[in-house]
């Protein structure tokens, strides 16, 4: 299969269709991110921990400041000017997310704290209502802890079984084995779109097709996908899609759960409180319609407005161009660091997005991280909240560089020089 065909299968835009940033465009983008202008330990900051959280452009920081300086009020209940304006901006943010994911309706967009809360919401609401003793939830061997533990909690509670589709030595899902694990007892499939530890892009379209043939709904963990590729929930036909605002240049504390309206309407509430009810008496309460049914309490209004600004920033530049840029960096980095003796890249799937995990012979990733930090290069070291993945590859941890819109090839050269320094120290 060609790369283009595979991308289509995976539900991706084809990065080769998009034009790479010119030097001037990249400089302009970098200037949008105030934090990048600083030095760390006397060296220019090279920020390669984007899979953990991305930096924020001025547009996002300004939107949050503007909200608190000119608009701050609680939403929905106020009849006063500020409350109406805050409500309008919060609603507008929901419509921006709808457009970003190409959802049918803004009512299918639920604001949550992040991907983790989105998955917990589905596990505790949809899961508790639909998963019973002896039933099964199917995930993959490359999930983040946040797409494992919520299902374990549910399965422990219900006497259900958590099944895990295995991955191969390249870090790719074994799709045949995965299909075989779909059983008449499977009540839900939850898969990551892109692995945070390996960078693998999962064939989510294929997975959804397979599951739907058996009438099993699918949740896609999009935390590592939404910042890098066009996500079209209608084209994917996923039932739930979750992502975090802070990984896509927005603020922390805000994230999104997309759910198909029919499923959301049938699901019981997740948390009780203000805003999620239609009427309350001490005998009985009736619940508000979606999405409000799932948004108890005062939401992160400023966060939603910040996320709105972030998604508009991304869309203005073009997510396919961002993806193409990161793809270029990944290829450049893979070539550059695989020439370093005693370095081994972990995760060599044919489709990868923005993540480069590696280990050095006889040097623990923690020591790599400390020495690179002295060079101004910020990477992640550890198990990346994916301990089962580490176990699969029989390693305690990896060093991980992950790329974003503002990274450059020169920064990758700095990474490679830093790794050489690590090897000098440990020679």
């Amino acid at each position, binding site marked *: 299969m060609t790369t283009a065909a595979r991308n289509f299968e995976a539900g991706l835009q084809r990065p080769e269709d998009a034009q790479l940033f010119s030097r001037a465009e990249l400089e302009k983008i970098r200037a949008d991110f105030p934090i990048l202008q600083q030095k760390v330990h006397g060296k220019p900051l090279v920020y390669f921990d984007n899979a953990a959280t991305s930096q924020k452009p001025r547009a996002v920081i300004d939107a949050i400041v503007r909200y608190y300086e000119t608009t701050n009020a609680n939403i929905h209940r106020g009849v006063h000017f500020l409350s109406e304006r805050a409500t309008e901006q919060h609603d507008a943010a929901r419509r921006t997310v709808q457009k970003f994911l190409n959802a049918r309706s803004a009512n299918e967009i639920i604001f949550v704290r992040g991907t983790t809360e989105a998955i917990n919401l589905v596990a505790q609401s949809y899961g508790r209502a639909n998963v019973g003793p002896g039933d099964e939830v199917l995930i993959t061997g490359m999930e983040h802890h946040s797409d494992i533990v919520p299902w374990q909690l549910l399965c422990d509670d219900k006497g259900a079984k958590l099944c895990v589709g295995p991955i191969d030595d390249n870090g790719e899902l074994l799709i045949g084995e995965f299909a075989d694990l779909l059983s008449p007892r499977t009540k839900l499939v939850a898969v990551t779109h892109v692995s945070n530890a390996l960078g693998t892009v999962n064939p989510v379209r294929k997975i959804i097709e397979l599951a739907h043939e058996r009438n099993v709904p699918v949740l896609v963990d999009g935390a590592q996908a939404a910042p890098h590729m066009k996500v079209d929930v209608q084209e994917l036909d996923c039932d739930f899609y979750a992502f975090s605002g802070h990984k896509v240049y927005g603020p922390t504390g805000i994230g999104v759960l997309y759910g198909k309206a029919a499923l959301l309407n049938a699901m019981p509430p997740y948390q009780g409180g203000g805003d999620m009810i239609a009427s309350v008496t001490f005998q009985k309460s009736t619940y508000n319609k979606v999405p409000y049914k799932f948004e108890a309490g005062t939401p992160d209004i400023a966060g939603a407005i910040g996320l709105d600004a972030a998604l508009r920033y991304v869309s203005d530049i073009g997510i396919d161009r961002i993806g193409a840029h990161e793809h270029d960096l990944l290829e450049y980095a893979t070539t550059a660091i695989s020439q370093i003796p005693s370095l081994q890249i972990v995760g060599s799937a044919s489709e990868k997005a923005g993540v480069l995990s590696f280990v050095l012979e006889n040097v*623990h990733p923690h*020591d790599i991280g400390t*020495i690179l930090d002295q060079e101004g290069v910020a990477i992640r070291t*550890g198990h990346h909240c994916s*301990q089962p993945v580490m176990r699969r590859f029989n390693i305690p*941890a990896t060093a991980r560089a992950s790329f974003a819109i503002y990274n450059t090839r020169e920064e990758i050269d700095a990474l490679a020089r830093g790794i050489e320094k690590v090897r000098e120290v*440990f020679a």
Partner: protein
Amino acid sequence: MSDLRDLYQEVILEHSKAPRNFHDLADASHKAEGFNPLCGDQFTVYLRVDGDAIRDISFQGAGCAISKASASMMTQIVKGKSREEAKKLFERFHKLVTGEEPPKNGEDLGKLAVFAGVSEYPARVKCATLAWHTLQAALEGQAEAVLPDEE
């Protein structure tokens, strides 16, 4: 590079490459496991305690250079000491790596003084103390070391 060498002293690198007492102890009277969930470092410390005296000590496991060297040098200095002396040594070592109390001349920290550089790297303090926490747990008869939240 000079500041990095403060952390990665030759002695530390040497111990991390060739850790001493790096094996299990068939006749261990005490044993405990230490695990740092943040980074995945994992060590088991074995002890043969006779009355009050630590007659033998060894360790096994995986971790970064700092944690491994710290475990290795800990086994060397603790062997033959009393429980109380080991406890005091950990307290002193803890103050050293957190920067609370720099090494003093004529003090009985021995080679452990090379870990003074850790105090400049707050994220690495837990690496240096993991084996010591595990030793303490073993001496107290616990199977697992509990790492403090703040260190």
